[in-house]
C-alpha cells in the first residue's frame, strides 16, 4: 500500500477536522449517549469526506478504495469508538452496494444526500432472531403492484434513532435463502416504521443503537438496489468493505492506546522506578505494537487487492477477526498498567476497553468470521469443495 501526496493532503485535512471539530466534543457526546449526526455529517459532507470513493455524478470524489481505507484508518484517531463507527456506517456499510448497484434514480434520491451529509444512513441486516445468521432473517417485503409492503423488525441498528433512511435487507421471494432477498432503501419517516427503543450499551456510548419495527411499510419498488432477490449477494460484497473498515478503524485507535499507555506509565513512578521501566510492561507493549503492525500489513494487502479489483472476502474476514481478537487483548493489557485510573471513566483506556469489546461481536461475531473462512477453505461441514 503506497500512499501518495494526494492521500497525505486529504489525510491532513481529515486530521485537522478530527482535532478541531470532533475530539473536543467527544466527552460531551459520550456523556449524552448520542452525538449530533446531522450536524457533524453535514460538516463532513461539505468537506467531501463522506464520498471519497463514491461516483462523481452523485457528489463523490471518484477516488479509488485506497482513499476510503486511508480515511478508515485515520478515523481511529477519534478518541472514542462510537463516532467513527457512525461515520463508517454512512460511508462503508450502508452505501457501498447502493453506489455500486443502485439505479441512477435511487442513487440520486439516497446516495447524493448521504454524500453531502444531508441524510444520515443506517444499515438494516441484523434481526433479534438472526444476529449474525444473515440468511435466516425474517423481515419480508411483499410485492403489491409497484410497491413493497415491508413487515418485520431489525436489531442493533447503529445510527438507528437519527437516520433518514435505512438500507434494508428483506425477503422478497420464496426461493432458497441465498436467492430470495433484496436490498431496499426505506425512508425512516415512512408510515409504519417505529424506532422501538434506543439500546443501552456497555460502550460506544456516543453512538445510538436502535431496535426498529416495520409494520406494513409501503415503499416503491424503484427504491430497490439492483435486481430483485440478489440482495444477499450484494450484501456479501458490501460486507468486504464493512469488515475492512471495521478492522482499519482499529489501527490508530489501538496505537493511540499504546502511546497513551507509554506516556502515562513513563510518568508514573512506583517502587522507585517508572511503571514503564518494568520489563513485563515494555515487553507487553512491544508485543501489542507487533500485533498492530501485523494487522496493518494484512489490511493494506487486502486494500491493494481490492483496488486491483480482486475479491478480498478472505483477507477482509481475517482482518475483522483479528481486529476483534486483538482489541480485546490490547485494551485489556494496557488498562492493566493504568492501575486504579484505568477503572475510572476519566481515562481513554477505560473507554477503549468498553468500546473495543464490540468488534468481536458487531458486523458478524468472531464465530461467523470463522464460519466464512472455513467455507472458503472448504472445511465447513457440508461446504466441502464449494470453496
Amino acid at each position: 500500500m503506497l500512499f501518495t501526496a494526494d492521500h497525505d493532503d486529504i489525510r491532513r485535512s481529515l486530521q485537522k477536522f478530527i482535532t478541531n471539530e470532533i475530539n473536543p466534543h467527544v466527552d460531551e457526546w459520550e456523556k449524552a449517549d448520542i452525538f449530533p449526526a446531522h450536524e457533524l455529517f453535514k460538516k463532513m459532507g461539505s468537506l467531501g469526506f463522506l464520498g471519497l470513493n463514491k461516483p462523481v455524478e452523485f457528489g463523490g470524489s471518484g477516488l479509488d478504495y485506497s482513499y476510503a481505507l486511508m480515511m478508515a484508518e485515520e478515523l481511529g484517531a477519534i478518541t472514542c469508538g462510537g463516532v467513527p463507527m457512525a461515520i463508517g456506517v454512512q460511508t462503508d456499510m450502508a452505501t457501498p452496494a447502493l453506489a455500486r448497484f443502485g439505479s441512477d434514480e435511487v442513487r440520486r434520491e439516497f446516495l447524493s444526500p448521504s454524500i453531502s451529509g444531508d441524510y444520515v444512513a443506517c444499515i438494516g441486516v441484523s434481526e433479534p432472531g438472526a444476529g449474525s445468521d444473515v440468511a435466516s432473517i425474517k423481515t419480508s417485503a411483499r410485492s403489491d403492484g409497484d410497491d413493497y409492503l415491508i413487515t418485520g423488525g431489525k436489531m442493533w441498528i447503529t445510527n438507528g434513532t437519527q437516520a433518514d433512511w435505512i438500507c434494508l435487507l428483506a425477503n422478497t421471494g420464496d426461493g432458497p435463502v441465498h436467492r430470495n432477498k433484496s436490498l431496499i432503501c426505506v425512508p425512516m419517516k415512512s408510515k409504519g416504521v417505529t424506532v422501538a427503543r434506543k439500546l443501552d450499551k456497555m460502550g460506544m456510548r456516543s453512538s445510538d443503537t436502535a431496535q426498529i419495527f416495520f409494520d406494513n411499510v409501503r415503499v416503491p419498488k424503484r427504491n430497490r438496489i439492483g435486481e430483485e432477490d440478489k440482495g444477499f449477494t450484494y450484501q456479501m460484497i458490501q460486507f468486504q468493505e464493512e469488515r475492512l473498515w471495521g478492522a482499519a478503524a482499529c489501527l490508530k485507535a489501538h496505537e493511540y492506546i499504546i502511546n497513551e499507555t507509554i506516556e502515562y506509565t513513563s510518568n508514573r513512578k512506583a517502587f522507585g522506578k517508572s511503571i514503564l521501566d518494568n520489563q513485563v510492561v515494555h515487553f507487553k507493549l512491544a508485543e501489542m505494537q507487533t500485533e498492530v503492525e501485523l494487522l496493518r500489513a494484512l489490511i493494506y494487502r487486502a486494500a491493494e487487492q481490492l483496488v486491483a479489483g480482486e475479491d478480498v472476502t478472505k483477507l477482509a474476514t481475517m482482518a475483522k477477526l483479528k481486529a476483534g481478537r486483538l482489541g480485546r487483548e490490547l485494551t485489556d493489557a494496557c488498562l492493566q498498567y493504568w492501575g486504579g485510573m484505568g477503572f475510572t471513566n476519566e481515562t481513554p483506556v477505560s473507554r477503549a476497553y468498553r468500546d473495543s469489546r464490540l468488534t468481536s461481536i458487531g458486523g458478524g461475531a468472531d464465530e461467523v468470521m470463522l464460519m466464512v473462512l472455513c467455507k472458503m477453505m472448504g472445511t465447513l461441514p457440508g461446504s466441502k469443495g464449494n470453496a
Partner: protein
Amino acid sequence: MFRPWWNAKRESAHAMKSPFYTAEHDAFRDVMSRFVDKEIAPFAHEWDEAGEFPRALYRRAAEIGLLGLGFPEEHGGIAADQFMKIVASQELARAGAGGISASLMSHTIGSPPIARAARPEVKARVLPQVLSGEKISALAITEPGGGSDVANLRTRARRDGNHYVVSGEKTFITSGMRADYLTVAARTGGEGAGGVSLLLIEGDTPGLSRTKLKKMGWWASDTATLHFDDCRVPAENLIGEEGQGFKIIMQNFNSERIGMAAGCTAFARVCLDEAVAYAKERKTFGKPLAQHQVIRHKIVDMAQKVAASQAMLEMLAWRLEQGESPVAEICMMKNQATQTMAFCASEAVQIFGGAGFMRGIKAERIYREVKVNAIGGGTEEIMKDLASRQMGL
C-alpha cells in the same frame, strides 16, 4: 464448596460432602442465600444503574450476622473461620454486582486495623457501630500519585498538641462518599515505610471534602477521592503506634486477597451460570447455541477454570486455618481468580453476542468489574513481583 453449578436448580448446600464445610457453614450459607435472593438480587441492576444502594442494607446485613464475621465478639462480632468468610463472599457475589459487595463490606478492609490496634476506648466506641450497620467504615491508603506503593505515600499528619493535623489526598476509596469512619494512612515521620502511621478520621471532621469518581463498573459502590485540608484528628485516634502503619496495613493483605479471590471465583461462576442458561435457550443457525461445539467447549473451559480456582482457594483457606501464612500462594491465588473471572466474563459476553454488549445482563456488568479486581488490592504484576520474591528468586 465444589457445587455442580451447571445444575439449573440450585441444590441445597448440605447435599454435597466437603472436607471443609460443616453444618454450621451450611446453615449460614442458607441464611446468606435467602438474604441475597430476597433483599439484593432483585434490586441489584437498579441499584447499580442508580449508582447507590440504600443505606438500610447495612443494618439488614448486620442482622443476619454478615457484617460481624471475624470480628471480636465483645464488640459485636461473630467468630468466623476462613470458610465462613468464603461462604459470605461467594453468596453475596451471586447477586452479580460487585459494587454492592464492595461497599457493603468495605469495613472488612477498613476495620481490621481498628480491631487489631486501636486504643481500647476507640474500639469499644467504633466497632459496635460499624458491626451493627449503623456506621460505615472505609480504608483510605491509595493516593493519586502512588497506587500500590504504600511506603512512599505523601499525606502528612503533623502532631499539634493532642491532635494530628492531616493534609493530603486519597483516591479510589471504596465507600468513600458515605463512610463515617475512615482508616487513613498518613506520614507522621520521615521518608519510607517507617514514617507511615494509621489514623482513624471521622467523616464529619472539618477540612475533609469528598468527590465522587465515575467508574467503568462497580457503580453501586460510592468510590471517592478524599481531600484532607488541615483536618484535626484527636491523638487518641492513632491506630497502633507512630510508624507502625505500614506493618498494620500489610497484615490486612492476606485476608483481603483471599476475600477478593473468593469473590472473583464466584463472579466467574455467575457468568458461567448465566451463559449456560442462555446457550440452552438461544437459537442460531437453526439450533440452540449449546449445540454448537465451540460454545459447548467454551463452557467447559469456563467450568474448568472455575473448578481449579475454587479448589485452590479452599486448599489455601485450609492452610490459613492451620496457621500458615503462604504469601506467595495467596498472590498466585489472587491472579488465578481474577484471570478466571476475566476469562469467564469475556466468554460469557461472547456467548451472549449482541445482547452481551447491552446493559441488563450480569455478564455485561461483571465484564466491567474484572479490571478493578485485577488492579485493586495489588495488581497482577505486583502479585507476581511479590510472589517471586517470596519464592527466593
